[in-house]
């Protein structure tokens, strides 16, 4: 299973995805140096990504805590999510995300 991650320069990489891992962990494991300062505890907003709108309905909506953390991120849009709060399942095979402000 895969996810596709586009970096700030517009380069897209195909990354091996593991079930139950967060998208943040998958991105880091794939060799992309995402900041993710709090290690996935929804406490830093340095794992900010934009999720391809086509995938939005397949991902559970953000929690209050995640929305609150996103207040401390920049260039937040409707597609903004914290990658450490999206957990990979079979249904997300092929998921497309783009690294957002503050994540590198």
């Amino acid at each position, binding site marked *: 299973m895969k996810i596709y991650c586009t970096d700030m320069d517009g380069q897209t990489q195909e990354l091996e995805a593991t079930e139950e891992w967060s998208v943040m962990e998958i991105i880091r494991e794939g060799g992309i140096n995402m900041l993710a300062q709090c290690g996935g505890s929804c406490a830093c907003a340095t794992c900010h990504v934009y999720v391809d709108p086509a995938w939005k309905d397949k991902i559970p909506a953000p929690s209050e805590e995640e*929305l609150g953390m996103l207040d*401390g991120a*920049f260039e937040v849009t409707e597609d903004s999510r914290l990658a450490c709060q999206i957990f990979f399942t079979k249904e997300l095979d092929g998921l497309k995300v783009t690294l957002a402000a503050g994540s590198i």
Partner: protein
Amino acid sequence: MKTDVIIIGAGPAGLFSVFELGLYDMKCHVIDILDRPGGQCAELYPEKPIYDIPAVVSCTGAELIERLLEQGKPFSPSFHLGQMAQSLERTENGHWRITTDVGNVFEAPVVVIAAGGGSFVPKKLPLKDIERFEGSSLFYAVRKMEDFKGKKLVIAGGGDSALDWAINLQNIASHITLIHRRDEFRAAPDSVGKMRALVDEGKMDLKIGAITEIKGQDRQIEAVTIKPQTEDSYDLPCDHVLAFYGLTMKLGPVADFGVKFENGLIPVDTATFETDLAGVFAIGDINIYPGKMKLILSGFHEAALMAKKAFTYVHPDKRYRFQYTTSSSNLHDKLGN
């Protein structure tokens, strides 16, 4: 100020060092840029439980720090908070000198770098050409309330800092506009209520949107551009901007101390946790060695081994004597038991 050991960073590793060093008669001065001790535990997860502290089934980040402070108390450490350790130099007598950004100078034979993930500093707006405004019309903290007297002020953010300052500067600034990305606030309900009341009474403006540009002449801001989620952007004239987007960890001045770094971390000898500079140690999240795990547990172990070697610098004329806290009456005296 002359002392035995200067500790940079009041996170769990720095705080436990106070205890380990104290057992062997070494007095510590602890420096941190945050205005309270605790590092990541206090700043990032004070209310979250930690489950992997040996023999402590569960305690929150804040509780862990409280206990570490209590444990270190018999050794009366001096805390120097709200200041950044800025430089490290060797003194004429072979000791080390640390200077902080508020001009405090410390000298000691031993320096412990327990700087964790780096110093906590405010997140800065990632906008082009705005550094020139910093400190004159763009601020990330309030140093003196007087700076905002009679100013048309924009405050950005939706947390406690943004709301507290919007309320507290209300009678000082000539006008305040609060800007937040959404019409919901993660702050103390009381502050949210006060802010809403001020907005309803027409004493303060609230705009929903993001700041996309800051305009001005030289170092003086003249307007911010605001982009609401769906409508078009517009300019809002103002004199000062105060931005509160939380804190982030940046390596900071430690990088220029002259200690050897590898990929942003300090390599150490795992027998002593000394760096490539004699008498300068690195413990906790800031160091790297084969098998390193960034855990509080690791920082504690590292502190104990560091103290043993530090002793040889602080008390060169004495012999290190290994003792258990359980049975040593000498240690009991020091602990006040």
